[in-house]
């Protein structure tokens, strides 16, 4: 399902009168059916951006998976800490930004990494730096949106969080549950089973069932794929159903290319066989990549904007207004954020408008009075 190809096809069909039915031929062709094409061209020019967060204990293969997903090598110069250095490590937030281009479409990809999560002996509240970061991005966007110069707002909000569940356990561990519950209402959480090459097919199935049950039992709201429209063809619906049943995805990543079945593929070479990352019968990497990039990237962004950000915004405003009524101050209903532009100008403009309104109201009253007097006479 190449989204771009699909759109191109659609536009072609719309522009080509030969394909129309006889009835439609009689209708005058207005031409707004080319809107998707116009949007498409504009967005291609503008480029897309996407922020992906990866979270999980160290050694789960997060960086390898990111490199495999986007065919990049973001972590070339990374220096791993040894055991002594890790003892005093706190959870950090590290951002890598990379610009990728494919077939003329530009993507500004930001990967937010969380080294140190879950590694300490005492992991109480180890997710706090992460939730704080997400809230910070929301707050930043909120301010920018409420500001006066909205032309070049940078959207740093986290669109998706991939959470890596270790394959060694018997399901979700306490730290997994707590982390996902802390984040499920702030960001789209997509749980993954990491390093799936240490599990046999039956073990994978058992673990997936277990994880799905526990997610439901603990009330964790992971990212739900939207229902496909009823007018999609059967094949699409079937694929969609398979995708949903595959959650959480069991993934394997690789930084190396190996020779398998006469081809060079990304994979891992073991003495007992070769694991191919892009082989659907070996792992769900292809499904994850399709979801993340090829079919649901835009939906992830939409859900972030429409749901998570709106929730944050509503909460924020509510907090502020409740604070206002508490303090018993009568201020304007405009948010009390320090705006990036100088307050004086805004205040002046507002005052001007107020005065103008007041004058107009006075004039209106005078006119009404005159009419009234005129009637009386």
């Amino acid at each position: 399902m190449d989204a771009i190809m699909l759109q191109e096809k659609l536009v072609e069909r719309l522009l080509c009168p030969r394909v129309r039915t006889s009835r439609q031929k009689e209708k005058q062709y207005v031409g707004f059916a080319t809107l998707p094409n116009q949007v498409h061209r504009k967005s291609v020019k503008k480029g897309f951006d996407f922020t992906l967060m990866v979270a999980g204990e160290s050694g789960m293969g997060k960086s390898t998976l990111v490199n495999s997903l986007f065919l990049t090598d973001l972590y070339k110069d990374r220096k791993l800490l040894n055991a002594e250095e890790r003892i005093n490590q706190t959870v950090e937030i590290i951002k890598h930004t990379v610009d990728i281009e494919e077939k003329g479409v530009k993507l500004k990809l930001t990967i937010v990494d969380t080294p140190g999560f879950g590694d300490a002996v005492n992991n109480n509240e180890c997710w706090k730096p992460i939730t704080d970061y997400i809230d910070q991005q929301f707050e930043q966007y909120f301010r920018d949106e409420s500001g006066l110069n909205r032309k070049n707002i940078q959207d740093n909000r986290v669109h998706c969080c991939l959470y890596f569940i270790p394959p060694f356990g018997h399901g979700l561990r306490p730290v997994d549950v707590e982390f996902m519950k802390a984040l499920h209402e702030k960001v789209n959480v997509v749980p993954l089973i990491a390093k799936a090459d240490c599990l046999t097919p039956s073990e994978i199935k058992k673990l997936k069932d277990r994880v799905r049950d526990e997610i439901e039992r603990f009330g964790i709201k992971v990212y739900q794929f939207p229902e496909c429209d009823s007018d999609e063809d059967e094949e699409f619906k079937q694929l969609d159903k398979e995708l949903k049943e595959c959650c959480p995805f069991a993934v394997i990543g690789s930084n190396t290319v190996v020779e398998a079945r006469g081809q060079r593929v990304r994979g891992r070479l073991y003495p007992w066989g070769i694991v191919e990352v892009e082989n659907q019968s070996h792992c769900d990497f292809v499904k994850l990549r399709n979801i993340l990039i090829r079919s649901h990237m835009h939906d992830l962004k939409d859900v972030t904007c429409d749901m998570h950000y709106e929730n944050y915004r509503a909460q924020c405003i509510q907090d502020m207004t409740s604070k206002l009524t508490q303090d018993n101050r009568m201020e304007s209903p405009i948010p009390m954020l320090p705006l990036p532009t100088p307050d004086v100008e805004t205040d002046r403009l507002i005052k001007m408008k107020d005065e103008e309104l007041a004058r107009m109201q006075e004039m209106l009253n005078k006119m009404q009075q005159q009419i009234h007097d005129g009637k009386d006479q």
Partner: protein
Amino acid sequence: MSDSKVTAHLDGIISDFEGSEVNPSHSNMSAPPHPQPPAKGASHGTGDFSYVGIDAILEQMRRKAMKQGFELNIMIVGQSGLGKSTLMNTLFKSKVSRKSVVSNPEERIPKTIEIKSISHDIEEKGVRMKLTVIDTPGFGDHINNENCWQPIMKFINDQYEQYLQEEINIDRKKRIPDSRVHCCMYFIPPTGHCLRPLDVEFMSRLSKVVNIVPVIAKADTLTLEERDFFKQTIREGLRANGIDVYPQKEFDEDADDRMINDKIREMIPFAVVGSDQEYQVNGKRLLGRKTKWGTIEVENIAHCEFAYLRDLLIRTHMQNIKDITSSIHYEVYRVRRLNETNAQPNGQPPNTLVNPQQANGAAAQHQVLTHEM
């Protein structure tokens, strides 16, 4: 509890002894048949005057050991899901783990760390062994794992205490039941990076009281290069933190020992894969794990190092492990304890440590399910 007779194959446990063939007896409680007296005198040929017969003592020792049987107590520590129970079953080729014994093994994580020990009597070629597997569910599974090693330290010290009490008893048993932990297998998750803070904390504390054998669990997720790199970083981490795992350098007795142990020290921690399922590979039935891309054979040294671990633990170094526990770790504990009581202001002699009523059977602190022979 139903009687279940567990038969295992323990080749080599009697490799230290020169053995004549003993019929493997499958019936209960039968004493091994008396072996023929070695015709050693004859092999020395002429000059019967030079043969005294001292080496016949080996045979006598062997017979005695066979009658007495051996004891081995192994503790397994690691996060849940690392394949500890499966590895135990694979090592002893029988269902010796806690999960195999309890009918409905719950997979919940206990709120505090529990210590559960299960004993089995296994026999091979007439040699009997009482194997106790001590499991520690709940270790490292919580969000806050501070002090999770404390219950384990306490348990190990309690076993030493129990032995000590029995030893300083005035009227003590002929053969003190040995419940001391001989070996602690610590399971490291195969992250591929380095030791975690929890691993370092645990091992640095426990290496002083018990023999620790670290293993890399579920090693089928590491390629060979990753495995070597991981092992190297682990060894460096152990060195940097002053953790002395088995075989400890300072307890090497002579040059031969040192040579053998150096080779082992180059290889620890062993990267193991466990399995209790058999698959058909090249016409043979082997223990392994079957995946879509191949079958991992547990006993194939090109695949994983399980065979080395088994040889170390059972075939070559079992007696050495027990010796170090009793002659070094236990002695350290004993000296400390006796000095503590000697340092008491009223200066009670050590013998009054023991309350005569407590002499036999100090309170058992673990649940023992012993299978009747």
